[in-house]
């Protein structure tokens, strides 16, 4: 007998790249028997690729896939006891509902009576009794979806893979199907691996949530864990609303944000460490200004049905509060946060400034300009003079970086890894060929896109590297 804690599928050190672009960067993942596991992440994070590896449609370049303890690398999809519900349903248009569902059993030469019985049972589970003879092209999106689920589940897989199966449905149907999927999963006692970019779906249905970004797993945990104790700003920002603020960990249980010292419950981050602080909007209590350390002025109040969404400016930083009691714009309020609700996270990008190395290719003393070579690009810097062939270390603050609106940047095709609103500005982490960059911006940039990056060299510090020449 298998118990709920038995690992059924295990991915170890999986690495995948297409055309030199890393899709999965050495990920490890265990899927337990009978659990509802959701892989959550923005588009392009590698979640569908992970699913295709489990299904056998894609072979990883490195790493092992094990199924019930046996290595199954190289095993074709039809030999795996895993079934998939595809994103666009992929029902066979030339077959009716019955034949679609019976497809897998007919291949396995299951006796006719049993096929009939099991299709009927399955149709009852997915709530499509009496639909056997219908043509699949005449079904609605939600019905097609349920046929696709029935077709996969009737094969009695150990693991059912679902690739954003609700993506094409409208909101109301999606809510219904979320509930139904969870019911089906519990009725059939099958492990579900569900891929989605919708955090709400992930939180409602899952036993385990796996948050992915840029080819790596950021966090694995129960929905409560990832919501209440996100490991970093990306997870906090991706799941639910959050106030994410730069802070400094002074000592165990003492944190400083916006110049104020607060008590918290986290330990072990060291002394005077720059960290990220996350505070959920519902964890902030609106009190009189004199009753709280953090004070601010209400700038916006929106009624959201269940609660009011109150925006507060506090020392140049924007805070969101969810409260059942409203407030008036212009009110001076205090924001009371109990220590338990102040969540401390390691910074995703440790350095506060960007340092990179450049080779001076040519220099013009009269015009006071130099041309430098960085990564694969060459560009001119005005107002500086260094001898050709000097090696420079250039340091730029996050505010000196920008995305070239005209498309002409100093570095081309820089990947936006994450965009997180930190109260005052967006903090954007970018990745070029050789390094990561931290940028400050007031514009909402699109994650997982490639952009031209531009530098403002008037804010730069230049340092000549001596005796450190590359050999």
């Amino acid at each position: 007998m298998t118990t709920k804690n038995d690992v059924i599928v295990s991915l170890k050190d999986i690495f995948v790249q297409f055309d030199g672009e890393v899709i999965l960067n050495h990920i490890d993942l265990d899927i337990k028997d009978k659990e509802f596991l959701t892989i959550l992440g923005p588009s392009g994070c590698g979640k569908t690729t992970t699913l295709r590896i489990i299904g056998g449609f894609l072979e990883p370049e490195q790493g092992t896939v094990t199924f019930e303890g046996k290595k199954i690398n190289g095993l074709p999809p039809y030999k795996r006891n895993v079934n998939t519900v595809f994103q666009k349903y992929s029902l066979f248009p030339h077959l009716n509902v019955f034949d679609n569902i019976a497809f897998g059993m007919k291949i396995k030469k299951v006796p006719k009576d049993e096929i009939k019985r099991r299709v009927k049972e399955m149709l009852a589970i997915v709530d499509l009794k009496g639909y056997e003879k219908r043509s699949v092209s005449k079904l609605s999106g939600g019905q097609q979806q349920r046929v696709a689920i029935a077709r996969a589940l009737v094969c009695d897989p150990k693991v059912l893979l679902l690739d954003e199966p609700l993506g094409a449905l409208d909101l109301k149907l999606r809510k219904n199907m979320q509930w139904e999927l969870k019911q089906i999963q519990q009725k059939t006692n099958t492990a579900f691996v569900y891929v989605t970019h919708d955090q709400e779906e992930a939180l409602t249905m899952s036993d385990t949530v796996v948050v992915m970004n840029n080819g790596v797993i950021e966090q694995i945990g129960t929905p409560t864990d990832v919501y209440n104790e996100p490991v970093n700003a990306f997870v906090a920002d991706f799941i639910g609303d959050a106030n994410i603020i730069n802070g400094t960990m002074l000592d165990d249980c003492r944190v400083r944000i916006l110049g104020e010292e607060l008590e918290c419950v986290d330990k072990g981050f060291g002394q005077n460490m720059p960290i990220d602080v996350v505070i959920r909007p519902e964890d902030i209590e609106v009190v009189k200004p004199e009753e709280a350390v953090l004070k601010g002025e209400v700038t916006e109040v929106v009624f959201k049905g269940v609660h009011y969404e109150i925006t507060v400016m506090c020392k140049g930083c924007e805070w969101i509060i969810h409260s059942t009691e409203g407030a008036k714009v212009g009110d001076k309020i205090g924001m009371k946060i109990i220590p338990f609700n102040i969540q401390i996270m390691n910074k995703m990008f440790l350095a506060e400034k960007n340092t990179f190395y450049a080779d001076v290719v040519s220099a013009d003393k009269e015009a006071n300009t130099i041309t430098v070579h960085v990564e694969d690009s060459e560009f001119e810097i005005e107002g500086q003079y260094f001898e050709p062939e000097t090696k420079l270390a250039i340091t730029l603050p996050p505010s000196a970086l920008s995305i070239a609106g005209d498309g002409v940047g100093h570095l081309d095709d820089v990947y936006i890894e994450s965009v997180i609103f930190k109260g005052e500005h967006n903090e954007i982490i970018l990745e070029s060929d050789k390094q990561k960059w931290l940028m400050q911006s007031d514009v909402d940039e699109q994650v997982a896109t490639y952009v031209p990056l531009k530098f403002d060299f008037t804010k730069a510090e230049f340092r000549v590297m001596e005796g450190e020449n590359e050999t």
Partner: protein
Amino acid sequence: MRLKRPSIPYIIWMAVFTFIPIALILYSAFTDSSGGFTLEPFTKAFGYFDVFLRSLWIAFISTLICLVLAYPIGYIMSRQKKSTQNILTMVIMIPMWMNFLLRIYAWITLLQSGGPIDTMLSLLGIHTTLIGNQGAVILGMVYEYLPFMVLPLYSVMAKIDNNLIEAAEDLGSNRLSVMRKVVFPLSIPGIVSGVTMVFVPSASTFLVAQYLGGVDDIMIGDVIDRIFWSDQNTGAAIALILMAAIFLFLIILNFFGDEEAIA
């Protein structure tokens, strides 16, 4: 029902190029040289019954060979990258840019005794006549009409979503049963149009048999070609019978296509 103005050019076109010629053929087939009604052209036409059957037989075999060759070609083409697909389509089309007669002459040169293929076979100790028989006629026909089979098959197969193939594999199908249970049923419209496009012209073709076949291998197209100048009425009667036979064949084929597509 009121005629819509834009359909007028189409009606004129159909009248000039379809209905009037058919009416003229009908008239010729039922009259003698002086213009009086007679069934004599049909009695004469039945004298060529064996040629008629042979033509349908050769057309049938050629179509079958085309289908067997074109099916894997079309499938492989349809599973390539888009750019590769375009290049392969081009490669299939290029021979069609060359004149039809020229291609037949090329086969004569290749197949004749003392030609390259014959010489090579002789070296291997195989002595046989490659030209002037039914086999050569079928070879010529297959060569001539293969692109007409490949292209419709390819275009139907290219529309089969790769996800359907993956779904079938996911449900336990190996490559063979993916072909049998998914690709084949979904490619039936392509088979129907390919078979139509090969069978119809090859049943009525001429010259191929005259050049590549022997004296006994002439086809009904050649008979019409030869007889029409001397006896227009009999020629018209044969043409009419051929038309009727092809029409019947198309009806049967379409019936098949529809049945399969629904089931």
